[in-house]
């Protein structure tokens, strides 16, 4: 016997009753009407989520759309250190740094763009951030849009959530 040849279970021969089809078809009709009647009677049991109106609650550690955190005074927590942009494997973060008016803070992001079409939602930026300024805990996906420009999220939008 050849090595590695596996005996596969072949379907058994149909019995006479099965080969008539009719009885089996009636059984099948019974199954489908059972589902039909159950779903008519218990409409709530249908697992469909009516999406735009009803949204699934994501698990707490779900990595979704990004957001930028704020300090108590409302300025962005980000210090424009470029750690996230460096860590990003998809190179989707573009930061322009400026000198901060606050004497205790060195830099602040003049602009902070995330190209959501390039992002692979790996969470490396969140890991890399020394100030806990970027998080992915909005609990939802990137909402769809109709142009590439609108899907490059600006700092204002990222600070909103």
């Amino acid at each position, binding site marked *: 016997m050849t090595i590695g040849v596996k005996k596969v279970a072949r379907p058994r021969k149909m019995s006479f009753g099965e080969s008539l089809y*009719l009885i089996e*078809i009636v059984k*099948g*009709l019974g*199954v*489908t*009407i059972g*589902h*039909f009647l159950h*779903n*008519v009677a218990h409409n709530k049991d*249908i*697992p*469909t989520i*009516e999406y735009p109106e009803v949204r699934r609650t994501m698990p707490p550690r779900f990595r979704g759309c990004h957001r930028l955190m704020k300090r108590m005074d409302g300025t962005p927590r980000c210090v424009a250190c470029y750690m996230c942009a460096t860590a990003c494997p998809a190179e989707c973060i573009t930061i322009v740094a400026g000198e901060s008016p606050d004497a205790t803070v060195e830099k602040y992001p003049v602009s902070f763009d995330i190209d959501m079409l390039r992002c692979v939602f790996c969470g490396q930026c969140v890991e890399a951030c020394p100030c806990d300024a970027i998080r992915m805990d909005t609990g939802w996906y990137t909402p769809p849009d109709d142009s590439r420009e609108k899907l490059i999220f600006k700092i204002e939008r990222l600070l909103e959530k």
Partner: protein
Amino acid sequence: MNPLFDIAVSVARIAVFFAFVFGLVVVMTWVERKGAAYIQDRRGPNRASIMGVTLFGMFHPLADALKFLFKEDFIPDGAHRLFYQLAPMFALAPAILTMAVVPFGPPVTIAGKQVALHIADLNVGILYLFAVSGMAVYGIVLAGWSSNSKYPLLGGLRSSAQMISYEVSMGLSVVGILMVFQSVQLSAIVRGQGELLFGILPRWGVFVQPLGFILFVTALYAEANRTPFDLPEGESELVAGYHTEYASFKFSMFMMAEYIHLVVGAAVLATLFFGGWQFPYLGDSGFAFPGGISVAVPAWAVFLLRIGSFVGKTLFFCWLYVWVRWTIPRFRYDQVMRLGWKVMLPLALANIFVTGIVLLLIDRGGF
């Protein structure tokens, strides 16, 4: 006789039955989608709304129709322009014509005249039905050939082979009914089914011809190109079969033809095998149960019960089409052909033979 009265009656009959069939066609598209959804644990159409009312998605057929009307009327490059345009008409016309011979109620007396609830009570009823419904294959073949595309061509080929093979066993499966009721006129067949069999069962076609019934249903599904015989439009291999290249209202004409076949098929099934407008144990003056008990029913109620019985049976068989469609997977093409020629045809012939012998014995024995 007043010719105006006759014309008015004819027009009214046509209008009522037309409205019934087309209304049912519209409802069936909804039933198909909603039924499919519920059988598969989905919700089905529920979005189309008029002023916030969705009514379980009942407005979807309306939305579909509007969409079909406003779509671009597209003719593919290289299609045979004349036949391409004719094909949907060839598909739809025979489908509409078939409904003419189905009796949808008992004769009524209006203004002292007997009026048959029948568009045309032809004395060749069943032959007309087969002749006209056989024409439907032209629409499909023309559509498949004139589209100048390989998938419609294959779909058209398949459907012509399938419809021709099943037409044989369909015709033969009905011969038993014709022998039992001694007529090809549908109204006579329905009248014959009003009697009782052995004094207990209604003498319906399904009780005197059970095998004929099974064969007829199977052939009917094959003729209407419904699952498990929807080879002509097997999505997985042929995209959409013969109507792949059709869009807008031409596509909807194919769709309508398919659903009219379905509705008329259900009505014919009810007529031939389930007593048409006959209500079990209901005579002209009331119920007469086998035990000798009889309940008097006023004439108008008898009439309504009989019409309701026809409508109810038709609705049930329409639903059966949907039910079967979402239960049984599609046959392979060679299986369809083998079933048609090697199983159905011999069985239909045997059915005729046995029916003939039994009728002869009954005749001799003088039952």
